């Protein structure tokens, strides 16, 4: 729920009436929707007691089944249902016909309808053979495929449609009752709460009231059974009619509620983006109709590569829809303004200059917004503009009146008069590449993809490839155990193993190993490799480090033409930066997004994936065919790639396209596994703690003891904060400092104040860092701050003032792969009333507390235990769901906090 909805709920509570959330409707209502009201018999789902078929004009036809558990009766009713809905199905299939749409009373009814359509589609001919039933089922199955899609309104629940447009003065779970929900649109009579309670007494979804079942339905059904069994057709008909009358009343009640809800929904004018949804659904339905007419059948669930394609398609459509929603000035844009995802402000300066033949326009945008998730390097697009303008964010500065953004744009062929000018009001949103061609490319690539061969462990030869590499650059990992693993990986590469996975703890030297692998492939085996990273920054970093370490290795950084190349990269003699794959190159480095958007990507002998746990299996399958041998290096404790679409379809599939690629390969025994044995970044005590909490089953240690890495304060202890620092430095390499328990906002002013005091005193006390025999004075660049949310980052930067220019303050997501001698981490659960899956994500906490070499101070309210004890896990669980990240997070959080408490490392500020 956004702030906008929260505000609207408060307003509705006092107005005693629902308030509109938006002046325009972002989803369509068809001119000829099919209104379906299914009623199930309790305990017999998906068998129907009755189903209502209606239109917008108030015409309702009710079909009932006096004996739902009886298969013949049930299918007879469904056959009658097929005949009733046939006119709708044929109209929707016509060119320029109406948009196909089914509207039901609630989300539960939507799920029940899907089960019914599924039953009709896959009806076993030995149960019931009816061509019409199956034909109708095949067409109705379209709605199953569209239900969970954001960009579709084909199967719509009246409760969902209403709550998308109106806020009520009750909680969201009460909104699931259509009757209670619609009480809120009636004029205020001062008795809204009584009316709602009364409405709630009568079920409005798919089930009937248990008392009604017992007192009315059960005797009628019993009488029908008895009469039927004794062939007393007269009594049976009488009972059937009485039952039908009762069920008609129940269905009519729900149908009238749907009509009421639709009247309210249609009173809000349709926005242009709703048209796109309507035409998308119509086109998709027509396509399906043609396919079915030609004898095709949709499978219940796609398997293998087609399942991946479906996932990719949904993902892409979801992205496109999210972008399209922001193009329209309405509720979603207003919500995005409140979160800072859309920046709304005035252009206060404009500068233009030329680099070569390219005209560059720089503008400064000033907004009154105080927070934004947008940061340097993001690409923004100008909204409400007839010409497409895209800007790169050079800087975001936070002032008293709001944010100021420095933006750069390549003007291209657009004329000066089209450029945004000083004084103009502008709205900008994050530009997301939607790769319209990605699904086509995926289809092409996946057609030829075959499952990987089963890994077999062969005895590895004893050749020492570290010595081979030594001729070309630094080779050893400076630790005997790590060297052994590195050599095993090199041997497996040389031996020709198709899939090699190297899971590693934080700071184990993953990128270092990747550099060695590239050198081995290019300089020793004379084979080329394709290195995949997730972000451009990571890709640049790999190229710079590898090129410096192995100057004879010829490398290419494959970029998109719009990418601004960092100068360090262009100055390297053995590196070519280009947007086209070059020949004679040992190692090409690119992002996975770049490789998945080009039709003919470069191919190589080796595909090496860095931070592999962030690569979804769907994306991996697209890359799979680009090389014969695959090497994946990554850290499974870190934050996983986000799934933006519901994954119910794939939840029980161990080869699910939404899962991290290395996990799938390892679980399916399709890869050889080697594990780097130690963390060179973390001191032993931190490593022990992090290993137990986040890496069960993957033991590792730290390279250095806390005694080898210390902070020494040259100036004496003067304040309470100094005492805390002294105690923290003496206690170990990971210590928590807490404030008294309190429920707080995401930006906890008390905690941020404490953080600033600690940082200031740390720098003021002429602190010296002892780091594995090296000794250097601590400065702001050696300090880092990690938080969970962008709002926290913005507040901390503001509170640190000028220091924020040197201290890296960022979210856990962006801190992945980085380290600092001293880290401050804001505990994700601090001050939380009800932690969500976001805060409990084990990866987020793992990244936050594993970035330090010397000391990590975890700042929190002293209520973590409470938050964990009172955590209410979600009720919902997919059948056969394999992993449970939220629980893993909860366990890890408890373990960390218990350990800190037991070892007296929680200091009270």
């Amino acid at each position, binding site marked *: *729920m*956004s702030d*906008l909805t*929260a*505000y609207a709920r*408060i*307003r509705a509570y*006092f107005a005693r009436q629902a308030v509109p*959330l*938006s*002046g*325009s409707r972002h989803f369509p209502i068809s001119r000829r929707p099919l209104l379906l009201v299914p009623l199930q018999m309790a*305990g017999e789902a*998906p068998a129907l007691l009755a189903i209502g078929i209606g239109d917008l004009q108030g015409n309702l036809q009710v079909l009932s089944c006096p004996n739902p558990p009886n298969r013949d009766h049930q299918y007879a009713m469904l056959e009658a249902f097929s005949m009733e809905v046939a006119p709708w199905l044929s109209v929707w299939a016509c060119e320029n016909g109406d948009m196909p749409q089914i509207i039901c009373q609630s989300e539960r009814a939507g799920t029940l309808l899907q*089960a019914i359509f*599924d039953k009709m589609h896959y009806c076993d001919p030995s*149960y019931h053979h009816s061509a019409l039933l199956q034909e109708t089922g095949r067409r109705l199955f379209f709605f199953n495929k569209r239900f969970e899609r954001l960009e579709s309104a084909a199967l719509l629940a009246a409760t969902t449609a209403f709550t998308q447009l109106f806020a009520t003065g*009750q*909680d*969201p*779970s009460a909104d699931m009752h259509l009757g209670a929900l619609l009480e809120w649109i009636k004029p205020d009579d001062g008795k809204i*709460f009584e009316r709602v309670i009364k409405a*709630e007494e009568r079920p409005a979804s798919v*089930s009937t009231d*248990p*008392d009604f*079942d*017992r007192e009315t339905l*059960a005797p009628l059904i019993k009488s029908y059974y008895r009469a039927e069994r004794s062939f007393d057709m007269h009594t049976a008909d009488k009972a059937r009619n009485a039952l039908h009358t009762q069920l008609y009343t129940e269905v009519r009640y729900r149908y009238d509620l749907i009509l009421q809800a639709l009247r309210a929904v249609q009173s809000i004018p349709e926005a242009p983006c709703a048209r796109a949804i309507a035409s998308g659904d119509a086109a998709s339905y027509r396509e399906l109709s043609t396919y079915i007419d030609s004898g095709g059948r949709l499978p*219940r*669930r796609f398997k293998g590569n087609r399942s991946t394609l479906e996932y990719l398609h949904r993902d892409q459509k979801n992205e496109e829809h999210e972008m399209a929603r922001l193009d329209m000035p309405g509720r979603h844009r*207003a*919500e995005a*303004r*409140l979160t800072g995802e859309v920046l709304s402000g005035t252009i206060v300066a404009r500068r233009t200059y030329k680099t070569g033949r390219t005209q560059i326009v720089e503008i400064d945008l000033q907004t009154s917004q*105080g927070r934004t998730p947008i940061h340097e390097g993001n690409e923004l697009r100008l909204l409400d503009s007839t010409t497409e303008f895209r800007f790169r964010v050079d800087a975001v500065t936070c002032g008293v009146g709001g944010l100021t953004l420095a933006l750069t744009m390549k003007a291209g062929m657009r004329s000066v008069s089209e450029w945004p000018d000083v004084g103009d009001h502008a709205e900008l949103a994050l530009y997301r590449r939607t790769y319209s061609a990605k699904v086509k490319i995926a289809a092409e690539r996946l057609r030829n993809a075959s499952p990987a061969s089963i890994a077999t462990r062969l005895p590895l030869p004893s050749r020492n490839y570290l010595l081979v590499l030594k001729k070309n650059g630094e080779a050893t990992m400076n630790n005997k155990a790590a060297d052994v693993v590195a050599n095993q990986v090199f041997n497996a590469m040389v031996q020709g193993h198709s899939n090699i996975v190297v899971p590693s703890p934080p700071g184990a030297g993953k990128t270092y190993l990747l550099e060695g692998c590239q050198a081995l492939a290019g300089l020793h085996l004379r084979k080329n490799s394709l290195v995949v990273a997730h972000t451009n920054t990571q890709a640049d970093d790999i190229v710079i480090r590898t090129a410096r370490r192995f100057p004879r290795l010829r490398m290419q950084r494959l970029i998109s033409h719009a990418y601004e190349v960092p100068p360090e990269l262009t100055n390297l003699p053995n590196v070519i930066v280009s947007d086209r794959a070059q020949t004679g190159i040992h190692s090409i480095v690119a992002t996975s997004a770049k490789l998945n958007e080009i039709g003919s990507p470069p191919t190589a002998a080796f595909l090496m994936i860095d931070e592999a746990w962030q690569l979804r299996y769907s994306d991996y399958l697209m890359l799979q065919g680009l090389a014969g041998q695959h090497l994946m290096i990554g850290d499974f404790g870190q934050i996983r790639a986000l799934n933006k679409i519901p994954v*119910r379809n794939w939840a*029980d599939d161990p080869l699910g396209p939404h899962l991290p690629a290395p996990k799938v390969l390892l679980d399916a025994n399709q890869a050889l596994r080697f594990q780097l044995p130690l963390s060179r970044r973390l001191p032993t005590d931190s490593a022990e703690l992090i290993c137990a909490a986040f890496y069960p089953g993957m033991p590792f240690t730290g390279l250095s003891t806390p005694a080898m890495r210390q902070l020494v304060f040259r100036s004496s202890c003067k304040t309470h904060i100094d005492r805390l620092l002294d105690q923290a430095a003496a206690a170990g390499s990971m210590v928590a400092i807490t404030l008294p328990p*309190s*429920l707080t*906002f995401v930006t906890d002013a008390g905690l941020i104040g404490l953080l600033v005091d600690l940082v200031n005193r740390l720098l003021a006390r002429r602190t010296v860092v002892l780091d594995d025999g090296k000794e250097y004075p601590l400065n702001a660049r050696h300090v880092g701050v990690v938080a969970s949310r962008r709002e926290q980052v913005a507040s901390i930067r503001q509170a640190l003032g000028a220091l924020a220019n040197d201290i890296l303050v960022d979210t856990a997501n962006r801190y992945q792969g980085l380290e600092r001698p001293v880290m401050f981490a804001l505990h994700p659960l601090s*001050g939380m*009333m*009800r932690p969500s899956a976001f805060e409990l994500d084990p990866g987020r906490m793992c990244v936050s507390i594993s970035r330090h070499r010397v000391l990590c101070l975890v700042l929190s309210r002293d209520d973590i235990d409470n938050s964990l*004890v*009172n*955590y*209410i*896990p979600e*009720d*919902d*669980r*997919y*059948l*056969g*769901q394999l992993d*449970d990240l*939220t*629980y893993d997070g*909860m366990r890890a959080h408890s373990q960390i906090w218990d350990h800190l408490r037991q070892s007296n490392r929680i200091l009270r500020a």
Partner: protein
Amino acid sequence: MASVTPIPSLVTKLRGSVPESPPDARAIMRLSKNPRCDRLAAITMAHTTPAMILQEVFGETPKEAQSPFAIAKGKRFEREQTDRDALRLITTLLAECILGPNDVSVLNIELETLTIKDAKAKKDRQVEMTDEILRWKATGDPRAPALVIQAAIKVRLGAAGTVVLRPDLLIARADESVYRPGELKSYAYLHHLTDEKDVGQACGQLGVYGVALEDRLKYLGLPSAIADTGIIAMLKPGSMDSVARTQNIVRDISTVRRIIAVRSQILTDTIHLLGEGNALDVEKNILKLTPCYGGQCRNFCALHRKCREEATRQSNPALLGEEVEAMLTPAHCTIKRASELCAGSPPVTPDERMLQDRLLAAQQQWRFVQ
């Protein structure tokens, strides 16, 4: 010398004249859905239910929770699965490779004790039989059946005494040293369309049985490692056969462990709060216990309307949902106060100022989109 009140008498005293209903798996699961509610915890640990309190104390008839059709269907499905030495169920478990080809031994504890007329003696015998089977399993005795139907596991609930929990099934292959809990569910197996809430609820129950097993094994001095998965046997649509699926229940086990550890101590706190001699059979005593109202309460607690009325009187932000509650609570604001802040009332604390800024920004955007 201080007298120690025996636990059962403590429970009886606190319950007063309200009829007894010892907590079962559903009651313990209910606690885990609202762990901060002292009212619900005290009622459960006093061996009664919110529905009974509503009826006996507030004089209102609680609404029937389950339809007679569902109850009949459930019973029939259960009978079909367990009759004839659980032939249908064993066939399913073998087909799903949950049991091995030779794991066909079944023991139905309910059937074995059918002839005992005295309820207490029957329950004791059932617990004894279950204990014996657990010992056999732990020691690798081949007499341990692969499938135990209606086992009776005695669980300690701290200050709330002991209760006997009845898992539908305990399942283990011959080569496994621990039983996995199983549940028979009469709802249909609908592939990925199977209702997530139903699955979640079954997992919750399996979690309770998992912890019960762990506690009993500990009590019997046996190795107390338990399985982290449970089995849900659902109805195969169009038949009376079942489909069995293995489900991860680690989360549920952990939740139940936490709830029992924390909430079983509430009894003594409640007695202290109400004062000696006061019981839960008086309305004012019930209202003295702090509730934690939330919209979800309507799904599992018969007292939710009473708590909602209280919340409405207090202008409690929870009435508008968890998100609004999370937004207003850090500033210690009621809905009424939030409305005043929206209307421009000067904030009193820095937290109120922050909240007002957010609300006014939202108000501006709301007006903008109208």
